[in-house]
């Protein structure tokens, strides 16, 4: 290697390390100022890991695990000040997790998706005619949740839309993003809030698709997460045997 190219490489390394240092400097204020909210997010993320444990023998397990790693990267990006990437990875987590969950009920399409012949269609996933929260789908997989379909679909769509706004540089969000790597409390808080609802929405989707088919030991792995995050929903109380109006006598 010539002296010139060595100098050039060292210079790039220097620039990258400078950027890296900016990211490192970002970690402290980001984690310390948002400790409580971060703990809640990591608690939800650990619950997702429990669901993946319960689903590890499913054909779609690989996609779900890959999505989970996307979440890890999204979290890392958010804590290091790579905000757009943080939202982008979060959306990717949501897309792949929910996509794999939805397509698990359409094996042919799922295989086409895995082999790259079919793209995930968010429109199809959220379709009120045949999507994950459509009445026909819920009737087959989780009729208990029919009364909550609008609310839960709304939560899922909101989380996805918010991520998209950051990715596509929607004017209001792109103006918010700093041009350099620096700590912005409002954006970190926003990411954490979106992450919390994305993780919650994912657990709910996993529940409507899989919970009723689980064996008792598998139910045991995930039921704490359901009780913890969704015990205010009648569907969850019904499935977990928690108190319901009229069941006291």
């Amino acid at each position, binding site marked *: 290697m010539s002296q010139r190219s060595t100098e050039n490489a060292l210079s790039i390394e220097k620039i990258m390390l400078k950027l890296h240092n900016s990211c490192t400097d970002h970690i402290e204020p980001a984690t310390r100022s948002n400790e409580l909210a971060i*703990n*809640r997010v990591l*608690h939800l*993320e*650990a619950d997702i890991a429990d669901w993946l444990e319960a689903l590890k023998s499913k054909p779609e397990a690989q996609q779900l695990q890959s999505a989970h790693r996307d979440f*890890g990267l999204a979290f*890392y990006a958010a804590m290091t000040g790579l905000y757009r990437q943080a939202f982008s990875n979060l959306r990717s987590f949501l897309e792949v997790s929910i996509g794999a969950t939805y397509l698990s009920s359409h094996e042919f399409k799922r295989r086409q998706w895995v082999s790259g012949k079919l793209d995930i269609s968010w429109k199809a996933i959220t379709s009120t005619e045949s999507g994950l929260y459509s009445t026909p789908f819920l009737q087959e997989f989780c009729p208990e949740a029919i009364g909550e379909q609008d609310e839960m679909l709304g939560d899922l769509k909101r989380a996805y839309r918010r991520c998209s706004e950051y990715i596509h540089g929607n004017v209001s969000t792109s103006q918010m993003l700093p041009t350099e790597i620096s700590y912005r409390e409002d954006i970190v808080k926003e990411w954490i809030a979106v992450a919390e609802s994305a993780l919650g929405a994912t657990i709910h989707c996993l529940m409507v698709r899989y919970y009723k088919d689980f064996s008792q030991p598998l139910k045991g792995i995930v039921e704490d997460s359901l009780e913890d995050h969704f015990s205010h929903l009648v569907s969850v109380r019904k499935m977990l045997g928690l108190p319901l109006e009229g069941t006291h*006598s």
Partner: protein
Amino acid sequence: MSNKELSIRTEDLTLEDVGKYFVETDFDRQTIDSLKSKKTIVLQGARGVGKSFLLKVAQKEMDEDFPKAKTLAVYITFNAAGLLQTSDPERFKHWMLAKICNKVIREGRKKGVLQSSSSVFSTLASGANDEAIASRLETLWRSLEDSWKNDTARLETDSGIDPEMIKDAVEDLCDQAGVRRVVLLIDEAAHVFIPEQQRQFFTVMRDLRSPYLSVKAAVYPGVTYFGDSFQMSHDAELINVNRNILDPSYLAAMREIVVRQDPELEKPITRNGAVFDALAFSSSGNPRTLLKTISATSPLNMNNAQRVMKEYYRDTIWADHSALADRYIGHGEVINWGRQFLWNEVISALHKGTRQTGDTDKRVFLWIHRDAPAAVKEALRLLCYSGILYEAGTWVIGTRAQTGTRYMINIGTRTAPDADPVSATNRLRGSISIKRFAEFGANHEAYESIAKLDVEKMNGIQQEFIKSQLDRSVDLLDLTDFAKRACKKLGYDTVGKILAASEANLQEAKYVGTVRSRRVMNKATAAVMEYLSG
């Protein structure tokens, strides 16, 4: 009228909603402060009076104060579906302790005092293994899970895992993570359990008490069995959740509860003030009943309110109470007697009196002599569970300086038989006095059919349930030494022998008259009564 659905159960609410809908009264504040304190508390109240709501408000406040106060609130409900079906007390205890550990761990993770178990960051960091060392509590939880899940052999001997170990592990957690205290808020503490399991639960509750762990349990009156090892006066403070309907701020608070849930109801409520007041007063301080009846009275007007009051307080509330007999089979007779007593001897009698004299009988309280038969008291406790009666004072002096317990009759059930229950309720509203009550002495003729617990006539299942109690020595009953000696002298040295005798038989002992013989019989009956349903 608004189309918004009112949330009738606290379980339908998120913690955020709880904060939004909370209408604080002085009593609520005192109760919430007690729930946040170090004390062991038993929060007792009928269905729908707001026990869960108060627990959730306490949880929310502790959550919000956690960064400063470092008190870790852990809300627990034992669910029926996951309930371990076992007759092995050791496995049941482990199941219960495992649930408690698990909830503490989850809450600890949420607050960052325990590290979450996910491995995603380790995976991303090129397989670097920086997983947290499991806390003592997590290790203990795993052992407990293994222990109750292993059903291959009956756990004849104690496995060595007991509440003491949980207390130590919680102390460790507090020391290491700077947590001041863990507060267990156990909702519907014993409701999903059979009576035998309830007794085990309260023993565990007593044993868990420590400077680092305080337990609060919400229970229903009448259907909760504490067992012998848990003594309320020593082991816990009892808080009865009853809203005082005579408090001048009562109606305003009830109105606020409804309007917080649905602001659009404010106008119709203001327009139909007297109708709303009648419904609020009829609910006797029970927010769930009020929300239910308001929901059914749509749109809010006089005709709908009359209809709903008749439907709910003449039929629904009594049907719910009668259905209790399906769950507490051994108590079926007591439940039916209580319903008939209250309806025939109290409510109808008060109405009859009004019709005969032409003057409204304004009594809504009844008083039962302290020496009334144990089965009568049990029947009244079960009516308290259903919210048809509310205990309103013990050791209350009646006529001839006798003492007894005062109960308030649910106002709606008191006025629903009237042709115009809304007006009847509003008439009653201004003239209630806690000093006026219908009195029932120690030997009222209405008790006759229920007074004697006849073991011989019980079915095989009931006899099986109470078998262990019949052989209990008279020495174990909460009686004076004199009474115990007198029983033994006559040969009545066990609970079974006392129950087989009559009060007249007991009076054969020197200085034992009608009062002492009744008290002995009541203690023996009460000892068995708790076990009638298992």
